[in-house]
């Protein structure tokens, strides 16, 4: 019984040593820094990544929670409708300035009078 127990213990110990020798890396001569190197870099880069992710999430949630964009400002109100006299007076100015032909003047004036 004792021999058997010792055999099992020795086998387990051998297996453990063999496993650890596989897991344990052989130290290279050009080894880099561990705690102040790889470990610190991993921690800092993961902190930055988490911060960015949180900021992105906060930004997305704020966009979802934000109210709908305000409607575009209403167009400027149309100028108040002119009276036929004002329209004819404006037409006179355009004719006097040579902006419209006499035929056009007549046609527009007729239209204004017809719309009354």
């Amino acid at each position, binding site marked *: 019984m004792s021999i058997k127990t010792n055999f099992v213990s020795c086998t387990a110990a051998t297996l453990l040593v063999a496993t*650890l020798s596989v*897991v*344990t*890396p*052989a*130290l*290279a001569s050009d*080894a*880099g*820094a*561990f*705690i*102040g*190197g*790889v*470990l*610190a870099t*991993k*921690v*800092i880069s*993961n*902190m930055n990544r*988490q*911060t960015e992710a949180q900021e992105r999430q906060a930004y997305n949630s704020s966009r979802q929670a934000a109210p709908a964009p305000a409607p575009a400002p209403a167009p400027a109100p149309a100028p108040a409708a002119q009276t036929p006299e004002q329209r004819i007076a404006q037409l006179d100015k355009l004719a006097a300035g040579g902006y419209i032909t006499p035929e056009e003047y007549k046609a527009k004036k007729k239209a204004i009078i017809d719309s009354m």
Partner: protein
Amino acid sequence: MRNKLPSIMQVIGFMTFFLPAIGQAAGLDGKSNLVCAAVDVIACTNGPGCREGSANSFELPQFMFVDFKKQQIHATDETGLDVVSPIRNSEITEQRIILQGTENHRGWSASIDKADGKMTVTSSGPDVSFMVFGACTTR
């Protein structure tokens, strides 16, 4: 009362003789090399605050190894590169193994409980300070 006295003496006797033996059985004597597993990480910056998570979520090496003979802590990164931290100062007290070093403008300190193997590694630098919690056992 008289009946209790022997039992108290038995407890004291047990603590005196057997508890140190448990620590010795674990081999955490500051001489035998150790293999340590990182479990949790807490990292703090000067400004926004702290982050905590599993060592896995921080993508830390799964195991680190304490080599007392070579006076170094080493591990393997994800690319297979061996990375090493020389132990500049070590102190073995009755309860703990304290290891210290400096690297890349950072200081680090590792404390390992000789009784249960619980490990804390702290590293402080100009930008971020962090703590790694885990456990060690003899190799």
